[in-house]
């Protein structure tokens, strides 16, 4: 078997927990950038949350954004440098809670950027509190008896909401819980970048990911829980 290491990725050991999907997604982004030969014109934005140190693994120009503000920062960069490729990663807390205004309005303006939205249905970095995407009945640090819609509302379906907006070019929900879906996720990431190259407008790939640490499961149990439970609420596929 021949293995290769993307030029867009740094040779650093990641801080991600065992069985977490972030490491896979980080690499898929780098592979896509390499294959499209856009490394030297790409600017990436790391969010607050589990991907906060993403720039330690990305070998191209990068910056940070305050909690929820990745789309606003990306928009500022892209408007000044319309020929560069600008993308950001955001978790579910970052994008669906504190940054909801930024993502909706950025998408609604059809900014020609890519957002990779990593949804693991829990606040990972802050150690397991409820996220807007937490499933009904799911136990978290702040829903010890399980998420109760009467108190906490329902899981927020961001991709379905954004797909309604006329200026949005592409929305797909994928997953990284098994090899087939990792391959589909890579394709989706590449398509999002390709859309930006072709100036088609706003693209978002929602990637369902595992969080063994905060789900209190083994990596294998986590992959199965994603497949059997998370996908029921967040079905995979192209939404726009």
């Amino acid at each position, binding site marked *: 078997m021949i293995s290769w290491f993307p030029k867009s990725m740094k040779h650093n050991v990641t801080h991600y927990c065992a069985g977490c999907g972030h490491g896979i997604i980080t690499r898929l982004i780098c592979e896509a950038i390499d294959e499209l030969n856009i490394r030297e014109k790409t600017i990436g934005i790391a969010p607050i949350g589990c991907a906060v140190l993403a720039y330690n693994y990305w070998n191209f120009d990068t910056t940070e954004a305050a909690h929820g*503000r990745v789309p606003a920062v990306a928009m500022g960069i*892209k408007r*000044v440098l319309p020929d560069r490729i600008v993308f950001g990663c955001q978790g579910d807390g970052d994008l669906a809670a504190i940054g909801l205004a930024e993502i909706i309005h950025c998408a609604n303006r059809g900014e020609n950027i890519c957002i990779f939205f990593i949804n693991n249905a829990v606040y990972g970095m802050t150690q397991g509190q409820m996220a807007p995407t937490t499933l009904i009945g799911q136990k978290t640090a702040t829903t010890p008896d399980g998420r109760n819609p009467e108190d906490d509302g329902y899981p927020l379906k961001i991709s379905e909401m954004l797909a309604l907006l006329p200026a949005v070019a592409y929305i797909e929900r994928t997953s990284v819980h098994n090899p087939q879906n990792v391959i589909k996720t890579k394709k989706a990431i590449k398509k999002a970048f390709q859309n930006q190259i072709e100036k088609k407008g706003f693209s978002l790939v929602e990637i369902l990911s595992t969080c063994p640490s905060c789900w209190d499961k083994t990596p294998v149990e986590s992959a199965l829980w994603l497949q059997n439970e998370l996908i029921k609420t967040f079905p995979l596929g192209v939404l726009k």
Partner: protein
Amino acid sequence: MKNIILASGNESCGEGAIQSGCRFYAGYPITPQNELTEYMAKRIKEVGGTFIQAESEISSINMVFGASVTGALVMTSSSSPGISLKQEGISYCAGCELPAVIVNMMRGGPGLGNIASAQGDYFQATRGGGHGDYRTITLAPSSVQEMYGLMYDAFYLAVKYRTPVIVLGDSILAQMIEPLEIKKFKSIKIDKEWILDGCKNRKPRIIRSLLLKPDELENLNLRLQGRYREIEKKEIRFEADIKNGTQTLVVSFGTVSRICKAVVEDARKKGINAGWFRPITLWPFPRSFLRKISEKVKKIVVVEMNAGQMLEDIKISVEGRCAIEFYGRMGGNIPDEKQVLRLL
């Protein structure tokens, strides 16, 4: 031939920014600075720049953050409650060493307050405003013409020291209309050694303020503090009218200083030995000059449209060398000339 027009403070601010080379503006409407946002919407596109009416003050400062990492001359504006919302982003700009100009046309507070003129954001502007150990250069114009010129200084200083700069006006200055001479400025060039524009033919760069190791973060803080000491040494600006034998010095900033100037002129006609002092940089505050003056005068009268915020900087400068009296109005009320005169 001089190019003189009639302009409001808001329009002067916008044109000053355009003439300084500002090519990215993101803002959100709030009274009393809406004419500035509207001016930028029209003018910045004429010169090939970007205008965005953001979905919030929070978004607009973060758009400015993004545009700034590319090396563009960037600006946002708001009024008091909106500036509070921008503070997170201003702190990030300070932490990432990014140049940005933030205009605050102050209104009455706290909370929603009102839309009348006030100076209650002095502490917020001069003490950092957001979280962490940082300072923002704060420029306080007192006329439509000075607003125009200080916009250039704001962009120049922001780029020179890679720091956010606050231009602190108020509701009166924003709305008043005066003659404005449009002057050309020298172009401001940003050092390209730190910007993000894709890593072609160079190593990738990271712009960030997250430094998890205490020593690394302390080093950033020490570097910033060193820069702030340099600014304190080099960038003090003020205006003064102090004659020999001055016994009472009136100190005020922004539009209030225009009232105080008139009062001092009136007092002199009545034989009172009064002088007048106006800091233009509220941070760095002209401490050493005031310290020297405090050895010569008997009394300093501080007049502000707040509860006594610059007063604290004056007390720190004077260190008890002379008497200090304070007269402040709040809620949008303007200091009364007769009241100031009584204190002289």
